[in-house]
């Protein structure tokens, strides 16, 4: 919707600039002293307008529009200097952001500002109509006329003092004309113009033209600010999401560390299972079951970190037992996936991650626990963690057995494809292993 307004506004500026300047050139031949110069100037000006309007279509850079306005006014209307002051919140002032003009008359860009508390600003904010002409323009000539109006000055005692203050400000700026640019009554900026190089007065048509330009510039600035604010908001939301996600990951890492700390034999287990799981996932990015690969990996990352969280609920004497477990002890250990799922249940945001934790000990052929699920009944994340978990168990020492060599463990995974493991996942693991990314 904003884009539509932009385009129509832009066309508006273009048409007015175009029409006005063509008129100007036709009416005032003295603008072009020689025929040669005339034709050259005409081409130049068309190019300026065309280039500028092309860049303005998107309206993302109001500075360009302002530059063009200042340039066109100084060169084509013929003033000894022109400048645009825009409100800058950090300076609480109107800062000169663009200017052009004759040597010594051009006010250097960025060199001056007009503070918010200034007669020139306050008069525009007050919108006292009898100081302006009918279009809302402040002209030095008009102020002179008002000063001569004895009756008016009698009625408004403070007026004379105010006008003198404003005249002094305009004199400092060597400004004959000040044109305000508003958005919803807020003064966004001021266009200031010095005297015409021809020595003549500005005519009514010209003043109308300046007001239109100022209004278009105000619209451009406002739109650009709206877009910028919107972009900032989008960035902010993305940052908040990123922060929340990091918080989630770090909390999961802290919990995983708490599990690992209880069992020195499995120290680093969680970290490794997470790594292996993510390696497997990278081999599956073409898989149809995965809608959003980035989101899937983020979830898998957390699921892998939390897969053994249920061991928190297992007594130390069983968890740390250095000999083979008895049957009843084994049954207690086998409760850890269900305990983990129960611990995580209240965290709604975890979604499928809870299924991954609950079923990471299931087997493809249905011989696993806690539910004895088969094949695709087991969540994809659980199937992945299952392979990663088993590989780590085989390649690390346990109190009751020595570790296998990696290559032997890989062979075992291959052998169990279609039995303990989903063959597709086992295959993905083998591919990752062959690439050398696993270890």
């Amino acid at each position, binding site marked *: 919707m904003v884009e539509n307004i932009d385009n129509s506004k832009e066309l508006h500026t273009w048409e007015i600039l175009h029409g006005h300047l063509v008129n100007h050139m036709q009416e005032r031949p003295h603008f072009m002293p020689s025929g040669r110069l005339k034709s050259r100037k005409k081409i130049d000006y068309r190019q300026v307008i065309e280039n500028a309007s092309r860049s303005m279509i998107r309206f993302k850079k109001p500075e360009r529009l302002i530059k063009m306005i200042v340039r066109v006014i100084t060169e084509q209307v013929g003033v000894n200097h022109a400048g645009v002051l825009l409100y800058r919140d950090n*300076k609480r*002032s109107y*800062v*000169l952001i663009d200017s052009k003009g004759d*040597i*010594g*008359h*051009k*006010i*250097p*860009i*960025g*060199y*001056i*500002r*007009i*503070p918010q508390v*200034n007669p020139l600003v306050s008069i525009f904010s007050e919108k006292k109509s009898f100081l302006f002409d009918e279009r809302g323009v402040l002209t030095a000539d008009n102020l002179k006329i008002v000063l001569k109006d004895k009756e008016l000055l009698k009625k408004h005692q403070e007026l004379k003092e105010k006008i003198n203050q404003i005249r002094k*400000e305009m004199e*400092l*700026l060597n400004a004959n004309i000040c044109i305000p640019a508003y958005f919803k009554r807020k003064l966004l900026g001021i266009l200031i113009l010095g005297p015409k190089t021809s020595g003549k007065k500005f005519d009514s048509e010209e003043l109308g033209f300046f007001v239109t330009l100022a209004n278009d510039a105000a619209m451009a600035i406002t739109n650009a600010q709206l877009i910028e604010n919107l972009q900032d908001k989008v960035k902010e939301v993305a940052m908040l999401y990123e922060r929340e996600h990091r918080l989630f990951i770090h909390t999961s890492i802290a919990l995983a560390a708490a599990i690992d700390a209880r069992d020195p034999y499995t120290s680093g287990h969680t970290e490794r299972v997470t790594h292996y799981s993510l390696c497997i996932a990278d081999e599956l990015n073409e898989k149809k079951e995965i809608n959003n690969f980035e989101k899937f990996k983020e979830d898998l990352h957390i699921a892998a970190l939390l897969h053994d969280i249920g061991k928190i609920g297992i007594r130390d004497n069983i968890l740390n037992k250095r000999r083979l477990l008895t049957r009843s002890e084994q049954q207690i250990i086998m409760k850890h996936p269900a305990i983990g799922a129960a611990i995580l249940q209240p965290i709604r945001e975890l979604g499928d991650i809870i299924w991954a934790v609950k079923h990471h000990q299931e087997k493809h052929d249905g011989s696993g626990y806690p539910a004895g699920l088969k094949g695709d009944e087991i969540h994809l994340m659980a199937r992945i963690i299952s392979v990663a978990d088993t590989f780590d168990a085989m390649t690390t020492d346990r109190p009751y057995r020595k570790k296998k060599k990696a290559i032997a463990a890989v062979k075992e995974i291959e052998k169990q494809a279609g039995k303990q493991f989903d063959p597709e996942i086992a295959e993905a693991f083998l591919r990752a292993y062959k690439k050398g990314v696993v270890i």
Partner: protein
Amino acid sequence: MMKILVVDDERDVCDFVSNFFGLRGFQVFCALNGEDALQISKTQDPLIVLQDIRMPGIDGVETLRRMKEARPNNRVIMVTCVEDIERVEDAKKYGADGYITKPLVLNDLVKAVNDAVTKLKPNVTKE
């Protein structure tokens, strides 16, 4: 006619300030760098100096130091930026007579120069 020296490496600024004070009854000299400024200070003895603090080569503070060393009674107003806090401290040490921060308010510029003029020693202003 009161002489004023404008020192700024930006030609636009020199041109504008020259014209600005020229219209206000000063005889204005310009320098685009520290070397020229010191030279003009020596030959023309401007009593008021408007000195940009940031300049390539001999910077504003060093120009101030040398100027004040040679002519301690001349008034030097430093034109600074918000980020120049450290350099402003140095300028204070070397006896800068006033400060004005860019983007500046033209009325403040006029005031700073007028203040500097009134602070000149009476026998000097009479010449």
